[in-house]
């Protein structure tokens, strides 16, 4: 059977990776351990990142918050900093799996899995999150929407590790909304999800808005045209009708065991309709 390394420092990770470049990296194991076939388990090796000190915890600077990639979803949810600054992210993570899955699964894992249904992704797109990648060659940072290139595909290169997610503290949103449609409330993979963040005036007029959908395209669906549709308007029926048209035109869902393409397209639009009248008096 394969070997499983559980290193506790990044130096150790890079040393192991240079010896065994084909190692499968994982953190919580909630995806990799489910997906790995008996054959994969025979061959390995595996490199578990859950104890790497540099990859753990949430730290703030004057302008940014850095979430270590191996921080569990439960730890992100429990963080007062996240609750205060990025309630949208917290709300979305509360919908992932169930407590034990959130106790194991990590934010970095949810990103590297790059599932179209990854629940952390729509809010991270809205928050303009960046990922920090490190290898023996150095470190680089890129926006999350550039990092994820397709279902299960990212820019992560051999020998490289996703170390942290970095989010700017100044978001300027005073209204946020997350809704996920799944087959049941817990342990459900999203059929469609919507993350919405906006800066609104007291009367509900939107100054700026950002919208991101999960599970209705190969990667998170965003649209500048859609975001611009909201600016200068309240969330009234006429505006939402325009938004729904843009969404149903723009998304490119697939049919799978959980839902049909047609259902996903319908639901993606419906999710936005539920925003009607929201965002006032804030």
């Amino acid at each position, binding site marked *: 059977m394969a070997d499983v390394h559980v290193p506790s420092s990044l130096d150790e990770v890079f040393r192991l990776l240079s010896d065994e470049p084909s190692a499968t990296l994982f953190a919580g194991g909630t995806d990799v351990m489910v997906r790995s076939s008996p054959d994969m388990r025979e061959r390995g090796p595996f490199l578990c990142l859950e104890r790497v000190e540099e990859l753990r915890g949430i730290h703030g600077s004057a302008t940014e918050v850095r979430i270590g990639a191996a921080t569990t979803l439960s730890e992100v949810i429990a963080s007062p900093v996240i609750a205060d600054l990025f309630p949208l992210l917290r709300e979305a993570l509360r919908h992932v*799996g169930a407590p034990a899955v959130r106790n194991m699964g990590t934010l970095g894992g949810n990103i590297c899995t790059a599932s179209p249904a990854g629940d952390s992704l729509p809010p991270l797109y809205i928050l303009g999150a960046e990922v920090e990648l490190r290898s023996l060659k150095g470190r680089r940072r890129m926006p999350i929407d550039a990092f994820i290139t397709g279902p299960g595909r990212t820019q992560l290169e051999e020998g490289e590790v996703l170390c942290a997610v970095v989010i700017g503290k100044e978001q300027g949103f005073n209204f946020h909304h997350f809704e996920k449609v799944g087959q049941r409330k817990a342990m459900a993979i999203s059929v469609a999800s919507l993350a919405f963040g906006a800066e609104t005036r007291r009367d509900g007029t939107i100054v700026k808005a950002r919208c991101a959908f999960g599970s209705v395209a190969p990667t998170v669906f965003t649209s500048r045209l859609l975001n611009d549709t909201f600016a200068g308007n309240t969330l009234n029926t006429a505006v939402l009708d325009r938004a729904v048209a843009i969404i149903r035109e723009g998304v490119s869902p697939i049919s799978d065991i959980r839902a049909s393409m047609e259902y996903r397209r319908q639901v993606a639009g419906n999710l936005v309709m539920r925003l009607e009248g929201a965002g006032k008096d804030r």
Partner: protein
Amino acid sequence: MKRKISFTLNGSPVVVETDAARRAVDVLREDLGLTGTKEGCGSGECGACSILVDDVVKLSCIMTAAQLEGRRIVTIEGVGQDGELHPVQRSFVERGAIQCGFCTPGMVIAAVGFLKENPDPTREEIRAGLSGNICRCTGYEKIIDAVEDAAAKLRGGGSGG
């Protein structure tokens, strides 16, 4: 690759020599003879294999043996102490929260972990706290009754917890 893995199991130190990639649930059941921990789905979706890892509820069917190293593991066999049932176990018995019993060890572990975080939960919070544990018999109501009852017992300063 065979390796010596040391950890604390239900309060006692243990060392097992095993393949690092084996699943924790198999090590517990087959090597250590603790068959209370069940395997239901084998893919982290049903909660039957729940164990406490440093007091946190995790799923032993999607955890490798290597990840046990140095941890404090509690299985259903170690929840009660000195031959006494844990208050959660007692409440499960008293409230009829057990039918076939297959989900019970995972359900009890999940409840023990949940009540440590939230000692005074609402019924809705209990539902959310146990939402990763599937029971095909009870319809859940009696399980929720039991956890509510156990929470009151534990808050009352009784034994265990």
